[in-house]
């Protein structure tokens, strides 16, 4: 039973964990809780008075986020120089005693490299997205509610990343899930959108079961909810958790698979694009979906020393995610869906790195990805705002009308594709290096191929959106400065963030990203390559450039390509080396048709229907079965069964209804007799 504690003991645990050279951070670290609280204050304030304000509550949300950004920036800079560690735990109550140890329910905040990085990403991207949304949502029907939900999300996310223990993490985890549900379903009047919201919520719930079961399994063995105990246990004796380590680790990973959209639980993310674009940028690209990666990093000692057997399975899932699902971005027409599949694939990269052991590489990709993917989404939002359609078939030729959007979008795409020296190149390269180091050579090559695919689909998206001729309606024009300014602001870190973590290169007293992000969780040792491996970098770069080249070849908007596409309607084979149209043909026959054909239908089915079936119920399964050869048989069988069951129920009901005399006292008598029989049976049995 949770008892209220009259006097709340403030436990300061600064300096705990063995790393002696960390400072306690001073004023800003001491008051870091402000970041966790402020968005909730904004949330309540917007709900109460937002409607009556001039900016409909947007200024409250933006203001709160601005203060957060100030705090996070100071901490971020401070941490790059000297390294901060501060942990505060407030005991709220007690869960009881497990294995001789009292399990306290604590809330608090932790300020260390990992959480500072996340604070800053959330505050920075969040602030820019809020500003952008102020322009994007102008004239919307529910502006105050939108900003209230966004604030709720920001607060929950900060509670999540600032959590010093699993319980608080779960609170934040569910909070972001709720906010995600609310925001995906922002335009709930359309059935499709509310369906997407429900789908996202339920898929995440399925995964949350894993998170909660994992917690239930691990915590009694550990004796506390605190993460710091995990590091200590790993340092002291790796068998501390005994048999539950692997099972618990896999269950936590299952939870992370839902939030971070890993195969096969990724299906909710593309549908989540039903939400307004700023939501997609902030939650479904930059921050919320990385919560799973964050969880893996935070509990990394578990995977590092105690549950190493789990890791090959996790890497496999992550690599499937990054490779197989990246292809889906090739065929989507909805610009936001292209980006969504791309996000899924990039999350696969991060998860692969963390699972393989180089969790700082994964976190670095998380860091850079947050900028360029938020940039791409906001750019897409700017385009959608201008042409009033999500489909690339309604776009084209926007390069001249929307120069700022175009250039920032190109920067983001190049960074995502991994072109030197943009941020994405450095982070992806480190992931490849990690996979190579840890002995996953085959997976490393798959990841390089994935880089090719990434470059390919981004080139296609850019070509179809910004080149060629405009195919939509009306006259698109550039978005207002309130929307383009965040684009520019995000383009800057998309270009330079990679400099923070070049292996073997340091900038004076500024420490490398790898050195400060995770030093406290697990001593890094050999996880970080000491110098750039140019050979591997070259492979990655070649893959990226090849992807861009192939993509441009196929989707360049010149007349020849157009003719070639037309001519492809007549199936004529051209020799590979002599005819560029052959590549088109290869693409049509080799990529499009398989994607439309049985193979891709299978992939698409796994993608779209397995989880859908669970969520949407047997109806979706039946519908799919009908589409297959054996579908008819199955359907009839099921129908037969259902009809038989229904008939039986009807017949039995006809007889049984005579019992329903409507006389209350007969029921009461039956109840008394039944209760007596139960009592007798119970007593006799026990």
């Amino acid at each position: 039973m949770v008892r209220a504690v009259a006097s709340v003991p403030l436990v300061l645990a600064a300096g705990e964990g063995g790393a002696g050279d960390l400072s306690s951070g001073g004023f800003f670290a001491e008051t870091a809780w402000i970041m966790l609280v402020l968005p909730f204050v904004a949330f309540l304030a917007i709900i109460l008075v937002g409607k009556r304000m001039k900016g409909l509550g947007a200024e409250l949300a933006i203001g709160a986020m601005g203060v957060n950004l100030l705090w996070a920036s100071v901490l971020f800079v401070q941490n790059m120089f000297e390294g901060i560690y501060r942990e505060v735990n407030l005991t709220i109550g007690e869960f009881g005693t497990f294995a001789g140890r009292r399990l306290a329910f604590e809330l608090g905040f932790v300020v260390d490299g990992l959480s500072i990085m996340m604070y800053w990403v959330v505050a920075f991207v969040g602030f820019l997205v809020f500003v952008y949304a102020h322009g994007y949502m102008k004239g919307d029907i529910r502006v105050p509610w939108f900003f209230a939900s966004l604030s709720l999300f920001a607060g929950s996310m900060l509670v999540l990343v600032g959590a010093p223990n699993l319980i608080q993490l779960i609170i934040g985890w569910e909070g972001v899930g709720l906010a995600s549900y609310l925001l995906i379903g922002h335009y709930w009047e359309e059935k499709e959108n509310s369906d997407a919201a429900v789908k996202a919520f339920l898929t995440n719930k399925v995964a949350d079961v894993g998170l909660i079961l994992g917690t239930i399994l691990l915590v009694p063995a550990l004796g506390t909810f605190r993460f710091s105990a995990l590091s200590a246990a790993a340092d002291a004796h790796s068998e501390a958790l005994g048999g539950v380590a692997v099972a618990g680790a896999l269950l936590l990973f299952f939870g992370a698979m839902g939030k971070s959209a890993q195969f096969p639980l990724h299906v909710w993310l593309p549908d989540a694009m039903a939400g307004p674009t700023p939501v997609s940028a902030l939650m479904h690209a930059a921050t919320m979906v990385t919560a799973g990666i964050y969880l893996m990093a935070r509990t990394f000692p578990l995977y590092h020393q105690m549950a190493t057997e789990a890791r090959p399975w996790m890497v496999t899932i992550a690599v499937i995610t990054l490779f197989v699902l990246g292809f889906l971005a090739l065929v989507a027409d909805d610009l936001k869906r292209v980006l969504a599949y791309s996000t899924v694939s990039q999350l696969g990269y991060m998860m692969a790195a963390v699972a393989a052991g180089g969790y700082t590489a994964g976190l670095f990709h998380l860091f850079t990805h947050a900028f360029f993917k938020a940039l791409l989404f906001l750019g897409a939002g700017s385009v959608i705002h201008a042409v009033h359609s999500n489909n690339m078939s309604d776009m084209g030729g926007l390069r001249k009308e929307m120069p700022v959007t175009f250039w920032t979008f190109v920067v983001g795409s190049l960074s995502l594709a991994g072109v030197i020296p943009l941020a994405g190149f450095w982070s992806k390269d480190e992931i490849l290096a990690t996979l190579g180091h840890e002995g996953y050579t085959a997976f490393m090559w798959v990841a390089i191929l994935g880089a090719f695919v990434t470059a390919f689909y981004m080139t296609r998206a850019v070509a179809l959106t910004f080149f060629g001729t405009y195919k939509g309606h009306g006259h698109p024009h550039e978005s207002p400065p309130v929307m383009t300014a965040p684009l520019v602001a995000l383009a800057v870190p998309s270009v330079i963030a990679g400099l923070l973590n070049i292996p073997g290169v340091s900038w004076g007293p500024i420490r490398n990203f790898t050195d400060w992000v995770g030093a406290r969780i697990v001593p890094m040792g050999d996880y970080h390559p000491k110098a750039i491996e140019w050979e591997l970098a070259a492979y990655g770069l070649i893959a990226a450039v090849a992807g861009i080249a192939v993509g441009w070849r196929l989707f360049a908007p010149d007349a020849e390509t157009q003719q070639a596409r037309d001519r492809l309607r007549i199936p004529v084979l051209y020799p590979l080396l002599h005819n560029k149209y052959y590549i088109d043909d290869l693409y049509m026959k080799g990529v499009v048709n398989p994607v439309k054909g049985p193979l891709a239908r299978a992939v698409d089915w796994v993608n779209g229907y397995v989880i859908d079936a669970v969520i949407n119920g047997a109806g979706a399964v039946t519908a799919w079965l009908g589409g297959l050869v054996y579908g008819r048989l199955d359907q009839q069988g099921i129908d037969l069964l259902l009809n038989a069951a229904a008939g039986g129920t009807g017949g039995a009901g006809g007889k049984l209804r005579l019992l329903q005399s409507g006389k209350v006292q007969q029921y009461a008598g039956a109840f008394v007799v039944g209760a007596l029989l139960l009592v007798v049976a119970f007593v006799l049995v026990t």
Partner: protein
Amino acid sequence: MVLTQFLVLGALLFSIGVYGLLSRRNAVTVLLAVELMLAAVNINLIAFEAFWNTAAAHGQIFAIFVITIAAAEVGIGLAIILLVFRNRASGNIDQLDLMRW
């Protein structure tokens, strides 16, 4: 005084209440029988409280809860009976068989 005598008294009272619940036709008298059953429960609660003699007197607290709920139940029950009477001009419970097949 021993515990058993109160328990047997409670059982007796409860059984009488069950008899009234099942045999009465008039709705008001059915409610009266229900009150009897609740009173029996109260006797049990108080007797067990005296038996275990807990410092916080849980049994008595629960008896008061039972009394409160009983009051609410009578209020609603009589209101329903009133409504039925208004619609069917009868207080007989066996005419309330709209819910049958």
